[in-house]
């Protein structure tokens, strides 16, 4: 798949958002939505200085499902830890993960994914962008967390944004 110009994608998403919010496909709404989205996209272009170049939109759909499954799984895991014995509740901590992803939009997406998944929270990025610090509730096996984040999220995000 070729690179999609981000302005078009942004406009399409805004347009879909407008129609969903109004819950209607009437011609008037279509026209109003079209005019509004084009104006908004054009007038806010200046406050979005970095153009994202998302491609491989199929990978993005795949990533969405991976994240959904992970959110459900870690919800159950975190609920188990909270209700479980004290020993597991006291094993939280910070850990560092080497990062290859450099695209700011990719990093923003990764931050949202890591934080939205219960059990892991984004805690910071080193100034050179090479090391990510996360806080993990269940810090038993650091290797497993590195594998999860690098292989399940980072690899797909690099495919999408770089």
């Amino acid at each position: 798949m070729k690179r999609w110009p981000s302005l078009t994608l942004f406009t399409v998403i805004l347009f879909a958002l407008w129609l969903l919010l109004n819950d209607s496909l009437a011609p008037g709404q279509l026209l109003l939505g079209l005019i509004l989205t084009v104006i908004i996209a054009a007038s806010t272009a200046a406050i979005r200085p970095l153009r994202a170049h998302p491609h491989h939109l199929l990978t993005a759909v795949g990533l969405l499902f991976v994240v959904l499954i992970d959110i459900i799984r870690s919800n159950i895991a975190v609920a188990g830890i909270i209700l479980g014995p004290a020993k597991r509740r006291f094993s939280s901590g910070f850990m560092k993960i080497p990062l290859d992803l450099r695209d700011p939009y990719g990093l923003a997406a990764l931050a949202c994914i890591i934080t939205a998944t219960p059990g892991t929270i984004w805690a910071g990025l080193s100034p050179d962008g090479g090391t990510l610090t996360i806080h993990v509730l269940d810090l038993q096996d650091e290797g497993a967390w590195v594998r999860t984040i690098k292989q399940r999220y980072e690899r797909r995000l690099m495919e999408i944004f770089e």
Partner: protein
Amino acid sequence: MTMDEIPFWADLLGSLLLISGGLLTLIGSLGLLRLPNLFARMHGVTLGNTLGLGCVLLASILIASIHAERFVFQEVLITLFMISTSPVTTILLMRSGIYRKRADTEKEPVSGQDTN
């Protein structure tokens, strides 16, 4: 259409979703009580934000769709806004927690398990 006309299976499924959503949120809030420190407690609250909210929204989609006799999925927007906004405040809270800890101990948080 009155509420009585919603079929039994949808009623049951909707109630189950609402109850499990509520339970998950309750367990998450219980985490505030049972987990040892600020950083660990932040994980518990995420439960209500993600699957807890998801269950309630699914129940809402189900009942609203039957009620309106077509597929209603505006609730997807709530998910979208939640996913794109709640991590920002969580990360800010995490950063301020780290700065406070650094002010207390005058060093970066190190890898490994929390000491307090």
